[in-house]
């Protein structure tokens, strides 16, 4: 295998692991808000790793430009979709589970 193929294989392996971890979180976490965080792993670093791995296989062709476009599109729309989802869930009156202790780091409030 050429060095480029090895780099690509490593990146694909990392991406597969991240995507799998996201799915594990999606199944194991207790409520919809925490599951959204698990989905976030796959949306950001998982997709970045897999698409980067493919980019190393593609070389300097138009395929590379298309991969970059897919990556940018996923990175730009991912946060918007999850914000819309979170907001819709919150508006419908779905209360998130919290760990029930005092709010964290109150010193942060009103920081100038």
């Amino acid at each position, binding site marked *: 295998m050429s060095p480029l193929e090895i780099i690509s294989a490593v990146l694909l392996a990392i991406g597969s692991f991240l995507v799998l971890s996201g799915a594990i979180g999606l199944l194991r976490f207790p409520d919809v808000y925490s599951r959204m965080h698990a989905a976030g792993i796959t949306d*950001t670093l998982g997709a970045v790793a897999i698409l980067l791995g493919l980019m190393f296989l593609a070389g300097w062709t138009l395929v590379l430009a298309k991969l970059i*476009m897919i990556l940018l599109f996923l990175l730009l729309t991912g946060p918007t979709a999850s914000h819309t989802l979170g907001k819709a869930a919150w508006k419908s009156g779905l209360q998130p589970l919290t760990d029930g202790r005092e709010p964290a780091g109150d010193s942060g409030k009103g920081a100038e």
Partner: protein
Amino acid sequence: MKHTASVTLVLTAIWLANSGHYTALLLGFGVVSIALVVWIGHRMDVVDHESQPLHLTGKLPGYYLWLLKNIIASNIDVVRRAWVGPSAISPQFETVPADQKTDIGRVIYANSINLTPGTLSVEVGEDTILVHSLTREGMVSLKSGEMNRRVCGLEE
């Protein structure tokens, strides 16, 4: 004017990268559709400093690098917690201050919160953002305000 030029340039790059056929006919179709999209964009009044934030171009790469470092660190953290299971998380739900003066600053801040796994912006207000965090530590580091400060730094 410079916003029109920028949107035309971006659309041309997208067309050329996606097409792969450089015959006169197809390039002609490209010119026609780009002109149409720019015209519709003007009619919708969306070709401005918000859709084409040119004034941020110089500062964005540095911020992206810092954000990427953050994303990788929090990804590793969330992956670990996903494998350990529900006992490893301590969800928080609070408002955090957002000191950005412009709408686009708040949008960048809320999107950065969303892009970082472990924190999710649920509702964006005038000067606050309602955030759900997977862990206590995530909320504490968000409230320490470094990301807030950096996004404010972009606006100046």
